[in-house]
Each structure stands twice: as C-alpha cells, then as structure tokens.
C-alpha cells in the first residue's frame, strides 16, 4: 500500500479559499462559480483571482449587480443538478437576496417532503475594521443561524477557510460561509491535497483551566492573543472556535465549560439577539450549569451600526484589551 504524503504549505486565507474552489471545480464538473466581479477583476477582495483564466467564463461567471437574481439562480441551478457557489461581495448585500436565501434555498428540501435538494454554497465576507462603515461591515451570522434549513460556517483560520469550504461544497444543503475581511491576507499552514474539515465540529484552539472563551470569526485570533496575555498574568484560558454555527457542536462547548467552570463568549456582532446568546442558553441548559463558578458573560459588539471613523469603529467591537479585562474580571471576581 502506498501512503500519500500531503504537502503542507503557507497560504493566505484568500488563497486557501481559491485553492478549495479550484480543487472542487477540478473534481466535479457540476461545481461552478458566479457573482459580481468574480471573473477578470478576481473578486472584490481578490479571492477568485485567476480562476477565470483557469476555468473559463462558463464556470467562473461575472454577473450584473443583482444579488436576488444571483442567489435565486443558484437555487435553481442546484435544484436542476448543478453545484453552484456564489459570492456575495459583502455579506451586508445578502439583505438584497434574503428571500431566495431564507424563503427558498433554506426551505425547499423540507417543503417538498424531501423530494429535492439544494446543494449550494453562498460565500460572503463580513466584519468591520476596514473603514467601510455601516452598510459594508456587519456581522450577520445570527440572521442565517435563525433560519432552519441553512448551514452556517465561519472559518477563523487559514486551514479552515479551505477545509470548511470543501465540506460545504460536498454538503447536499445550502451552506452560508461567512468569511472575514480582516483575515483574507493572513497566512497559515494548509494541506495541499486534503484538509476537509467536517461541518459541525468545533476546534479547541487552546486548553486552559480557569475559564473557557468561545469566540467566532476574527474574535478567535483576538481571544487567542488575549489568552497569551492572560497566561502571563497567571490566568489559564481555553479557547473554543465553534467553526460551524449550524449545526453547532454543543458537546465540545459544554465539555470545555465543564472543565473550567467559567464561560466568556466573544462575538463581533451586536449583543442583542446575537449568536452568543444562543451559546449562553445552551450552556445554561446543559449539565455545565452545575459546574459554573461564575455567571456566563458575553463580550459583544455594541448595539450600534458600524461607524466610519477609525476610533469609533474600534470602540464599536471587542478588542484584545477588552477581552483581557473581561476575562480577568470574570476570574478574579468569581
């Protein structure tokens, strides 16, 4: 038996996504891409890059500015035997497409009694930090996680950007992949051939004893940075990255909280109705409740639209010092 050795290389988050797209298109001719400026422009954030030159304009299609049409066409193509991947330039513009996402893609399999499948992927970048202001900076994961029938993924590392996308493409359901703008240029190790990351499995990014931080998106790296600083101060933190919000790996989260007895939940999105409220309720409802030594705390974006001015934008979402301060309070006061 010959064992294949998978090479691991350093790629950026954007390159890792591109590699997943290319491998999926090579492996399955039903897979194709479309969206605004994904062709010759290479995508607004450069993610699709040279794919149009490699796969042609039939499979890497530029569209007019018509988000509802784009997602609806993906639903139709998926129903009729293709495996479409669409890019929505900023996740904020999923608002334009929401009927096709929430009323069509999400529900068709169920409403038709299981007679049809909608195997499509919607990729969109979210998050603040670029000065793009209120209509180009939102973190909308809770919108999607609230709709039965959608799967929701938030890759926080370069390897996951590839691995989760490959799994999303394989999935027979509509999967919303929320990328983060601030991560596109970050580099990390990525396996060349494999590296599929199953949907619904959290990653324990760091193990500690004093508290468990659950963080999503760009907050994962901020929580890890905070954990390093906390360690210097004698506080030992676990960091859990759920990776998939729907289906959520509740077991890993509960186990991690059981082990430390304290939970700090960190999200960029505004607090009210946010996904971490769901995680808090999950912990409260679980056997971890009996192990809690402190109230469950959330550190979230303010309940405000993202402002333009850099100092305002920073103040609107959790930063590393905020996480350190909140974690320290939680451990020292309880």
């Amino acid at each position, binding site marked *: 038996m010959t064992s294949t050795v998978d090479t691991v290389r350093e790629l950026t988050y954007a390159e890792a996504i591109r590699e997943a797209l290319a491998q999926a298109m090579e492996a399955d001719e039903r897979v194709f891409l479309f969206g*605004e*400026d994904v*062709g*010759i*422009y*290479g995508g*607004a*954030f*450069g993610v699709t890059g040279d794919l149009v030159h490699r796969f042609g304009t039939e499979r890497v299609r*530029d*569209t*007019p*500015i*018509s*988000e*509802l*049409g784009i997602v609806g066409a993906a639903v139709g193509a998926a129903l009729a035997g293709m495996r479409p991947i669409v890019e929505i330039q900023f996740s*904020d*513009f999923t608002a*334009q497409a929401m009927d096709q996402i929430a009323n069509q893609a999400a529900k068709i399999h169920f409403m038709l009694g299981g007679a049809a499948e909608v195997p499509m992927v919607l990729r969109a970048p979210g998050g603040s930090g*670029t*000065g*793009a*202001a*209120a*209509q*180009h900076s939102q973190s909308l994961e809770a919108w999607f996680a609230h709709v039965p029938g959608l799967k929701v993924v938030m890759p926080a590392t370069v390897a996951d950007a590839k691995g989760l996308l490959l799994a999303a493409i394989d999935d027979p359901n509509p999967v919303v992949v929320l990328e983060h703008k601030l991560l596109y240029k970050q580099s990390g190790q990525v396996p060349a051939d494999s590296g599929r990351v199953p949907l619904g499995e959290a990653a324990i990014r760091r193990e500690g004893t004093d508290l468990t931080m659950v963080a999503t998106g760009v907050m994962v790296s901020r929580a890890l940075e905070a954990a390093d600083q906390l360690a210097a101060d004698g506080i030992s933190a676990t960091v859990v990255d759920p990776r998939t919000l729907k289906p959520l790996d509740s077991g890993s989260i509960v186990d991690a909280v059981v082990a430390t007895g304290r939970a700090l939940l960190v999200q960029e999105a505004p607090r009210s109705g946010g996904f971490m409220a769901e995680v808090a309720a999950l912990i409260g409802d679980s056997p971890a409740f009996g192990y809690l030594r402190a109230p469950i705390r959330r550190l979230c974006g*303010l*309940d*405000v*639209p993202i*402002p*333009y*001015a*850099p*100092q*305002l934008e*920073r*103040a*609107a979402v959790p930063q590393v010092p905020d996480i350190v301060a909140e974690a320290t309070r939680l451990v020292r006061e309880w």
Partner: protein
Amino acid sequence: MDLTKDAEAAQSALRTMWTIRRFEEAVDDLFGRGLMHGTMHLSIGQEAVPTGACLALADGDYITSTHRGHGHCIAKGAKLDRMMAELLAKETGYCRGRGGSMHIADVATGNLGANGIVAGGVPIAAGAGLAVRMRRQPHAVLSFFGDGAVNEGAWHEGVNLAAIWDLPVVFVCENNHYGMSMAVNKAFRVERLAERAKAYGIPGVTVDGNDPQAVHDAVAEAVERARAGRGPSLIEAVTYRWKGHSKSDKNLYRSREEIDSWRERDPITLFEAAVLGSGTLAEAELERCRDEARDAVRDAIRTANAAPDAAADELASAVYAGGPS
C-alpha cells in the same frame, strides 16, 4: 438656461465642475498618503452630470445619491469643509464621522444621502416624491444612480411606484460604462439604458453626460414635467469614470487606450472651450473659476484638519431618534 451664453451660469457651472475635480483630487492625494481612511469612489471625469443636473433644481428639491457621491453633494450646495471633515473622521463632519464618504449627506440642502447600497436610493426617491405630493409641495426629487443600479430589483420597484403614482421624481442614470468591472454591454441586452423607461410607461432619454448643457436641458424638462404633476422621467447621461472603481481596482477589464480616449473628452476642457469660443467668458475668468475652486478646497482641508476628531463616547445613544432608548 444657456450655460455657454449666460456668463453667470457659465461661471457657476465651471466653478462647480472645478470644485468637484479639485475636491476629489485632494481626497485621492490624502488617501494615497495614508491621511484618509476607509474606501473611496471618485467621480473624476463625470463632473458634468451632477453640475448640469443640480443647476436645474431649486431650493427645497431633494436628491438621493450614491457611493460615488461627492459631486452630487457639492453640486447640491454642501459646504466643502464639512464634507472634508466627514472624510477626515472629524466631529464637525456632516455625519459626525459616523458615515464617511459612502454616507455623506447634507440634509439641509435636500441631499438625503449617499448610499453604500447600489440602487438603495431609488425607492427612497420615490418615497420622497410621494411625501412631496401628499404634502402638496412644489418640490421635485432627483435620484442619481449608476448603470449598475439599473439591474437591481430595488431600481425596478422604485421606478414603477413613481410611475404609477405620477410622482415628481427625475431618475438620472450616470452611465459611466461600468459597474465595477462589469461592462454595460455585458450587463444589458438593451442598446440604451433609457429604453428601460418604456417598460414603466415614462419618458426616457439619453444625453451626453460630459456636456453640462445637455444634462441640464434634459433634467430641466423632466423637472418641469414632475412639478406639473405629469410624473417621473428617466435620463441616461453617458459619461466615463477615469479612476479605478475604488482603491482595489487594477483596471484589468479595460484598456489604457479606452481610458485615454475618454480623458480627451474631459467635460471641463470641453466646456471651457465652448464658453471661450462663444465669447461668454474670457481666459482670465476661467482662471478665476479654477483658482476659486482650488482655494476653496485648500481652505476646506485646513478647516477640517483643525477640527476635533469624532468622539466615540456617544455611540450607544446615537442609534435611535428621540434619545437613548
């Protein structure tokens, strides 16, 4: 109004076009030097459209604008220092640093705002027209949008509402040949975007968007029609964006020759030649318009730079009208 024969109108048009040009060149420079943050969409090369269009409007008329909205804002009468302060994230900016370039608005001059959402302003313009009608006001509403907006659902719904209710709205499409990298001839099967008007039963015309007179005449006629209660119109102003879509644009979708051929049709150069040729303005008067524009932009930068930075402490109480909830 004959912009090339009436000296006062000619100077006004020229000063506005130069002010837009100099303002955006300054913004480009500040951005390039890292002194301005965020993202930037420049309308250099398209100055004749907002200039000609807004000269056909009166006080009390409204506009809705776009992500490429500095020109609309200036032409409708905004103060340069408050615009510059907004882009420089200052407390004295039109939006107190909360909106930036993509949300710049001067509500006092009837500018209901730039928009980060393509076609977002189109149904809003219909709604403003509805309010004007219901309040029995004499005003008109002018909605600026790009060619790309014409393929959004919101555009069709907004235009149709204005049409069936005979609302006093003028829809002005700045066809600059591209929506980001998407060429108009790839995004549409119709030859002229003005043809879309037929589907809604309203008049549609195509004009030279690099000629402020042509834009002005078409808009003036449409405004008159709107005020008379005869409903909306669609005007397609054909022009060209000289700069990239935004800072990330490598211009891979168009040729250097194409850009150069449009730079030769510079709306400002052409207009200056026309007013000189007709004897309406002398070279010294042209020079004065240019100097005034340059000085106004310099003053705006100086004033804005001296202003305090936008303050973060009131964010949470800034979300709802009527104070904190």
